[in-house]
């Protein structure tokens, strides 16, 4: 199966796995604790501090590694939530049809009509900013997009004869949704998964940058850009490092998602 991986996908896989590795083993590979002040403010990179220090004198590399952990975990959980919620609701709407579909779809339309970032800002400024709230808010807002996609895919599959055959057999809706429709909707959903994950990373970074995401002293990439942004005026690149990390992650996950999509575009099924 892994014969002939294109170069772009290979780059994507390597970069993504590096970030994941950093996130998983953060406490073991980070040279310094995340929140401890170990040097002067905005020290340049040296043998002691590979990427230099930040605005408070904490080791930037260690914070990058711990930041990867926070950012990736929150984004992954939010994506998982949005997919579970969005796909289940989308499939349900497609299978039930009629007024159930109308009520759900118009409700989702209503949510989508409000700009996501503004909506999140309002909700987060009212609710206590914990990681759980963050995941919930991001997951629910993102699930509207997943709902749209999975409903559209499921509506197509729902009218196929094999679903009708299952209905005539007397199968329940649970079987129809999870055994007949879901396996056939996986390809587009998997491809969407990569993109949604990236949007979650960007969204979280934006929230943190605006001060409503991950709260200090926890490290996360968006927050680190915010902490170090003033250094740019003095020619200190500390803010650019987490920004670059966000960009590299976005591109590499996209490369992997593209490759997966290319490999599984046929909806004909079989061993794919």
């Amino acid at each position: 199966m892994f014969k002939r991986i294109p170069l772009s996908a290979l780059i994507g896989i390597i970069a993504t796995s590096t970030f994941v590795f950093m996130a998983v083993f953060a406490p073991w590979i980070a040279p310094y604790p995340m929140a401890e002040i170990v040097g002067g403010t905005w020290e340049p990179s040296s043998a002691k501090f590979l990427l230099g220090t930040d605005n408070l004198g904490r080791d930037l590399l260690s914070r990058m590694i711990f930041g990867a952990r926070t950012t990736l975990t929150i984004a992954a959980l939010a994506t998982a939530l949005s997919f579970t919620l969005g796909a289940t609701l989308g499939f349900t709407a497609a299978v039930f049809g009629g007024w159930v579909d109308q009520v759900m779809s118009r409700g989702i339309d209503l949510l989508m009509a409000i700009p996501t970032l503004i909506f999140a800002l309002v909700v987060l400024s009212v609710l206590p900013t914990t990681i759980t709230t963050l995941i919930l808010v991001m997951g629910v807002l993102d699930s509207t997009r997943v709902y749209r996609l999975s409903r559209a895919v499921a509506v197509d599959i729902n009218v196929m004869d094999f679903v009708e055959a299952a209905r005539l057999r007397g199968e329940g809706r649970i079987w129809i949704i999870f055994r007949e429709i879901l396996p056939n909707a996986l390809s587009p959903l998997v491809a969407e998964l990569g993109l949604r994950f990236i949007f979650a990373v960007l969204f979280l970074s934006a929230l943190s940058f605006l001060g409503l995401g991950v709260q200090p002293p926890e490290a996360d990439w968006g927050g680190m850009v915010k902490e170090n942004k003033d250094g740019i005026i003095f020619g200190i690149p500390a803010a650019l490092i987490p920004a670059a990390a966000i960009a590299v992650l976005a591109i590499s996950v996209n490369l992997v998602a593209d490759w997966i999509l290319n490999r599984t575009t046929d909806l004909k099924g079989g061993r794919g």
Partner: protein
Amino acid sequence: MADETLLEVCNLRIEATVYPPGEKPQTLVIVKDLSWSLKRGQVLGIIGESGAGKSTAALAGMAYGRGGVRLPAGEVWLDGQNLLAVGKAALRNVRGRKVCYVAQSAAAAFNPAHTLMDQVVEASLLHGVCNRATAENRAIRLFEKLGLPNPDKIGDRYPHQVSGGQLQRVMTAMALCPEPDLIVFDEPTTALDVTTQIDVLAAIKDAIRDTGVAAMYITHDLAVVAQVSDEIMVLRHGELVEHGTAKQIIESPREEYTQALVSVRSIEHEEKKPSTQPVMKVKNVTAAYGGTIDVLKDISVEIHPGQTLAVVGESGSGKSTLARAITGLLPPRKGTIEFDGRTLSNALAQRSRDDLREVQMIYQMADVAMNPRQTVRTIIGRPLQFYFDLKGEALDQRINELLEEIEMGDGFADRYPAELSGGQKQRVCIARALAAKPKLIICDEVTSALDPLVADGILKLLLDLQAREGVSYMFITHDLATVKAIADSIAVMFQGELVRYGPKSEVLAPPFDDYTDLLLSSVPQMRLGWLEEVTKSRRMASGGN
């Protein structure tokens, strides 16, 4: 002039590259070393099952290969010019001017944004054959010749404003308009109803004779090709099986494969006497898809145990709707459905599991009737689990038994539908229906998507199973040859109404009502001169009015 050779194809080879997932790209030979020639004014019928390479070979006659197709070897001489050796600019002068193409699905081939006239005269204007006024005049004459209503006005319409049969005739006019030397007809009547097919066929035949154009006529229906062709070429797996005059191929085919094609649908079926207790009674059923227009009007039919009711009619006659009403997918507005002495609830959701088990359905397109992500084992095994709670070894054993019954080995159990041929897919669908041990199986056009020989095999299997298991069939079809082969009783439907119903021997015996007569006389027969006889007798009948 008449004996002059127009097209000479020598040692044609056609290839394409296939990309099996996870493997190296492979070269697939679609047509191997094929040669044929065609004289001016002659019609060559090209026949074969799907995948035989007949369209690909005929399109090569205009040096055209569909996407991904290569023509690496051979020569195509048209009117003294080797089309495979000339450049693109020269080809552009040939296509649409000397050689024209009539596609299978006219509805998909016309541009919905332009009027018919614009599209019919386009090629003539593009090639500078004549000016617009002449081209339009010519088109109107062709419309008239092809028997289209209002020949001088119909060109102003858009493709969706005419019927399928008319559109196919307009496309023939489009091909004839630049006065080409050769026309390639690619299954022009396959998508049409039998009653429409005969008109289009007669129109095409007259037009070919009057204009003296040469033609290649591709079809999978030997009876159709026999009506229009001078010569017939039989292809199989990209190779020539037999080439001869139409008379020779139909009356004394030499090769075994051709003989099988000619004798297809010759299943003998003895009609059974109806029993006293029908398994299914449909009483005065009326149904509509929302709105006020009834798609079924007061239908009453009975199906007897171990027998087959054939429901015949053209598309839109309501025959599939009847199946949906019986299965409960479309609850009837009025009327009742009695099954085995008890009245079934109209709606699917209110029927008991046993009610559902006893009526099974087989679909036209086996491709989409099976979940592509499930193996044959899951597809056949699910009804066994669902209705009989079979597990483990008992389940495996029953699956193997069912695979035996449909004449497939247990080696197929772990395959996915994509890894089966069309006929095998339909067999698996039959096994899935049988797995529920039903009393009635509704077969919705189960053979119409299959090649004639494969369809024959499926029909024989269904008859065998009926003899063994005593299951009844409701067989929905538009193909009267199939009906003759398997039915015990027949219901003829037209625009949602039952026009004729009774035992096969009565329905197929005169006196006929008008519609049944039209339907029966429209079924192409495997003999020369049939088309002329029918059109002549129809003309006489209408002349008498």
